[in-house]
């Protein structure tokens, strides 16, 4: 009917789809744009990268404060604790959960004193089986403070992806040395193992699809608790940390 909706674009006989697409793209790029070709080294990297002064020299306690504030902004529940206090904080975070699953590499000290029935994941539980479990307790790989992001790697600490997804309540343990300030530092850490199964989590599952009012908990876990393990407070607080930080940059 319409003159523009005539026929499917021509395919070149005897040419594979791959060869044809590449030939089309090459033909298209034969017409150059006015300015020069952009090479990788031409990309201006003036933004704050992983080696940025702010990333390196910001006081670590302050970075953790930012993380906590951003996580709470997403309505995640944060439990700040120390190494010794971790088991109790984890128990508190798990709350009423009767059945808990953990990836195989989660330290025994996190789970030894727990009341709920703890299953160590051996990769056999089906999605339906996981659905019958109340909560999942995992460690993490990296936490990005400025965006309030928890980064899980599909390893013995972060677990296979289904394990941290199907149960309705997710408790993540973050250790102080895993906390970075910005996204570039986080990506740098992930880039050491780019082929892994990575999941970045920023707050509980949410949607704004109905009149843009935010509703929490659609398909992912509806509750996210973060247990942050921090160094025990130093005997002399309130010390000016700037000189030390400057040394680190140098």
């Amino acid at each position, binding site marked *: 009917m319409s*003159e*523009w909706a*005539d026929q499917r674009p*021509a395919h*070149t006989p005897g*040419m594979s*789809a*791959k060869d*044809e*697409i*590449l030939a*089309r*793209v090459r*033909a*298209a*790029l034969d*017409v150059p*744009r006015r300015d020069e070709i*952009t090479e*990788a080294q*031409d*990309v*201006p990297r*003036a*933004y*704050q990268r992983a080696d940025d002064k702010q990333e390196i020299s910001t006081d670590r306690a302050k970075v953790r404060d930012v993380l906590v504030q*951003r996580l709470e902004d997403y309505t995640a529940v944060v439990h700040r604790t120390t190494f010794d206090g971790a088991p109790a904080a984890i128990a508190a975070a798990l709350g009423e959960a009767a059945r808990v699953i953990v990836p195989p590499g989660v330290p025994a000290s996190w789970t030894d004193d727990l009341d709920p029935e703890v299953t160590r994941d051996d*990769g056999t539980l089906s*999605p*339906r089986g996981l*659905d019958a479990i109340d909560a999942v307790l995992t460690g993490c790989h990296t936490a990005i403070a*400025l*965006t309030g992001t928890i980064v899980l790697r*599909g390893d013995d600490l972060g677990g296979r*992806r289904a394990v941290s*997804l199907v149960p309705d309540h997710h408790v993540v343990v973050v250790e102080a040395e895993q906390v970075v300030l910005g*996204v570039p530092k986080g*990506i*740098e850490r992930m*880039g050491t193992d*780019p*082929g892994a*199964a*990575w*999941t*970045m989590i*920023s707050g509980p*599952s*949410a*949607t*704004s*699809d109905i*009149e*843009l009012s935010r*509703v929490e*908990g*659609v*398909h*992912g*876990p509806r509750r996210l608790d973060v247990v942050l393990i921090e160094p025990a407070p130093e005997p002399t607080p309130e010390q000016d940390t700037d000189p030390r930080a400057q040394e680190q940059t140098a």
Partner: protein
Amino acid sequence: MSTVDLGIPSVRPQHASPSSNLRGEQSFPDAARDELGNEVLRGNLRHATATINGKRASAVREVRDWQKLRNAGSALKWQVTDHLPELLEQLEESVTAAGGVVHWARDGDEAGEIITRLALERGAEEVLKVKSMATQEIDLNETLAHAGIRAIESDLAELIVQLAEDTPSHILVPAIHRNRAQIREIFLAAMPDLDPSITDDPPELADAARRFLREKFLDMPGSVAISGANFAVADTGTLVVVESEGNGRMCLTLPKTLISVVGIEKIIPSFQDLEVFLQLLPRSSTGERMNPYTTLFSGVTPGDGPEEFHLVLLDNGRSAVLEDPEGRSALHCIRCSACLNVCPVYTRTGGHAYGSTYPGPIGAILSPQMTGMDGPDDPNTSLPYASSLCGACYDVCPVKIDIPKILVHLRAEDVDQRRETKGEYHGTWDMAMKGASKLMSSPRAYDAAVRSAGPLSKVLPGANIGKLPGILPLVPGWTDHRDLPKPGQSFRSWWDAREKDAAMQPGSDDDATAPGAGPASSTTEEQS
């Protein structure tokens, strides 16, 4: 026009296949007129876009190096464009090395055939889908339905749209044109197990969708899921899917077979470059510091997630966009939809008026280039005019696509095309321009014309000139839709008077006393 068969295989870039959802039935002004009459739509749009704009602005304000990130994002996308063939081959290699299978689809139909075959071979009667612009573009659900496969949208908004047998109207919030009461009705009609006492409270509605889809996720019927991807990393073969609800994680994790349909322009050069795009996209898109969930996967991971991964690389008109050096940066789009939300045209007409999967300012430059503009009657020829050229879209674009410039470029192409087929001067506009050019080339004729405009218009009633009868050339078309202010004194008359005054009162340089209408009033307008 586009293909010349000389017996030698000379491959040229090709437009999208006609079965794609890239062209509406009506021209933009006609479709927009219908949409503008829909008050629910306008109210929803106003509320939704104002909310997102506010969130985006504060999320962006927080980032001190935002402009530097935009510069990097733009340059990275140029790097991808300039090196697309090499990067595509690199991506294929790295995905294959990671255990994935790469398919190439010249157009939407070919992609549909590949995906249908893969699904049928695995005995799938139902497939679950993650919201994906590419599959919407190639009308995949329809293609699968022809083969007897039911595609179920798992994104809440897409589900609403699908259950209502409707089409999406916004890139990010496809059901932006539906309010809560409408959504409740749609759910009640489509979900047989739903308790009729459900209210239209968004958490209750979201919970209904959760229960409806959870059954599907946990069993993953046929165990095939189909997704798109936000980024495909060439050096590591990593695909990145950015989402909020967790339906993406479900579909990327629980099925046996995962098929991802990705446009050839979605490549980014290296894993490290995610540090730029994962900052630009969420803040521009939903106005969040980071979206709730981002999944990164490379091929298959034994013991974790799908056992089989297929990547379908899609051209479908993208090579045609690439062919135009002035317009090719339209392919840099990362589908954040910030340009839609700030556009004074989109925020009033909504997405359906654009007739394409890609609405708003980006759609107005992307769709006509993907399909080609086939003469003045082609609805997509009207899209480059669907803009006031205010430039807000360029200001918010995270990868700095100069949308207004491309709109103007495409308008020029349309005019050139019409001149080729209809001659140098055709229609009232060209005739009027020809007349104006004659008039303006003679100082005396021009002087007489502008000096007489004021007095002549005095014979018309009212303060403004309203709709003029069609017998006059040029002006009627102009005055159909807007009032023309009556010309007051001409600039030349005003200047003469001013010079005369100045001669009489030497030393006075008070030039702010220009009388009445004319140049002085236009100055005031600029300031207001």
